[in-house]
């Protein structure tokens, strides 16, 4: 995809674009807020990566400016300010996601994918991945016609993974989206949930649907 990186730290900007390019994306960079805003206005991008503190014009002002002109390109805010209050501020300004420095590139990439990939429309009533079906109306889950009983949170977790089928979901993304938790617990609580879900979804079937990407996260899909 076409990505605009607005970041004044040249080293960080180069690290980011090299990695994005190696993942097959086309990247343009801007080193200050004004130039970044001009680029975001004049060209079409799939996603913007905006550092919060920039010379000339700060990141949140850029996003506010774009939103006021109905330019709704998804925007990922990067910041050294890690407080929850700052995160809420960033999302209120029109940012679609917020990531605190230092971050792992895999985390950023997974979040950018989640921002841009087409997902099931919100009014869908039935999610399907391979032979797995999840009914959003009566909350029934079945695989190959066999009913699977899930607890409420397991259902939410599976729904989220199915809506983003094929995309890597990191631990922090799952914590935020499924449990509304914005800190990182020290113990790997998500791992426990995934293995329980796996037992129910995958154990009795030949093809595994839930996959682990080591050190990054999980995804749900037919590809083994």
């Amino acid at each position: 995809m076409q990505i605009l990186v607005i970041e004044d730290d040249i080293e960080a900007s180069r690290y980011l674009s090299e990695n994005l390019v190696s993942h097959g994306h086309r990247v343009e960079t801007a080193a200050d807020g004004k130039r970044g805003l001009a680029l975001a206005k004049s060209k079409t991008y799939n996603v913007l990566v905006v550092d919060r503190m920039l010379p000339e014009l700060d990141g949140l002002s850029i996003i506010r400016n774009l939103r006021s002109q109905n330019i709704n390109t998804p925007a990922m805010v990067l910041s050294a300010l890690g407080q929850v209050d700052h995160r809420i501020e960033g999302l209120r300004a029109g940012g679609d996601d917020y990531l605190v420095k230092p971050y792992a590139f895999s985390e950023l990439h997974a979040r950018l994918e989640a921002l841009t990939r087409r997902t099931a429309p919100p009014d869908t009533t039935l999610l399907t991945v391979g032979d797995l079906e999840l009914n959003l109306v009566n909350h029934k889950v079945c695989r190959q016609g066999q009913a699977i009983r899930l607890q409420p949170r397991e259902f939410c977790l599976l729904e989220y993974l199915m809506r983003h089928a094929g995309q890597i979901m990191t631990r922090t993304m799952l914590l935020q989206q499924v449990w509304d938790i914005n800190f990182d617990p020290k113990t790997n609580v998500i791992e426990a949930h995934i293995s329980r879900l796996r037992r129910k979804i995958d154990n009795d079937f030949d093809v595994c649907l839930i996959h682990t990407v080591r050190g990054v996260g999980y995804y749900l899909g037919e590809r083994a």
Partner: protein
Amino acid sequence: MESLQRLHNLQGGDALLKAIRVRSQRSGQNRRYYLLVSSNKKKLAGNLIAWPADLPADKKVRNIWLAPKLIPPEVEGDDAYWPMIGAILGDNKHLIISQSVKDAEDIHEYSLAMMGSILGISVFLALTMGYFLGRNVLGRIDTINATAHTIMAGDLTRRVPLTGKNDEFDELSTLLNSMLDCIDQLVTGMRQVTDNVAHDLRKPLTRMRNRLDSILSIASEKASKEAIEQAINDCDEIVRTFNSLLLIAQTESGTRRGGWGQTNLSKIIEDLESLYQALANEQGLSLTLSITPNQFVDGNKELLSQAISNLLENAFKYSIKNGTIVVKLDSIDNNTRVEIADDGPGIASAQRKNVLNRFVRLEEARHTPGNGLGLSLVKAVADQHQAQLILEDNNPGLSISLLFKNFPSTTPPPK
């Protein structure tokens, strides 16, 4: 004048003459001067020299200029205006009664001198009293100053001595002393943290450095990749420790003020239970909840959630095999209490205060992962919510409670 005139009319000239002579001899304050002359202006009696030419005998007080030669010799001083009164008596004798201006001036001067000395004495007394009172006050201020100087020189243990008089100065000194206690505590805390940061961060940094160093000499690509991965993990650990320290510092200083409001504590615990229940199952632990629904406290949802999560993680970490963790939430007398109890080894009562400090890890916990910051954050969050953090024996195990006093307001308590 009237009385002399009457004397003359009743008793005759001789009596008058006698009376004037007697009166002329008088001295002292209010001394009068007299002159009795015959019809041809010849002096008959009195202490004035002669009749001044410009004094009419009309019984009216006039200021008459007396030349030096007319001034009685016993009066000191030069020519001056004298107030005098002249009158004609029965047999054409003329009489003057007068008063020396010099005397009036003397009285004036005397009263001035009197007033001056009274003023002087009063001022002296006032100053003396002021000095003694002031010396008392200044002495006590000096004591405070001296203490302040010693403290500034580095001796933070010094305190302002109290006199035991229970006056304003003792009140001020007590206040200053408690402020000094606070500062002392903060400085000690900071010193401890600096030491611990140095110690606890040097460990992963050294480890990371050694790993990167060994990558240089590793031949196999697979092995070097593994070493790099581990170095990245070390790096993440350092970042996590820094983030925890930062969060504790922000919470303690009260800079995290956003997101305050009535927070559903029951909901937070239910959410966390849903998160940790799977882990409890995996580890063969029993996690049970006994909570009153919809209990609200005034606070920050994120911080409360993280604090309770830290307590849960501790309970998980130190639980024995097949152990039980119980989370209780109830409200008594407008106080909301969250209790997390495990049946692990617990913490000896002597250590309970110590474990709330940053980076403190008990000997028994050395082999488990962790940075010793979990309870410090809980303490900071409790303090900011004006909640009590209570560590008790669970017989066996540890019970940690957060006791919230419910405030009617929705604003964060002042810090």
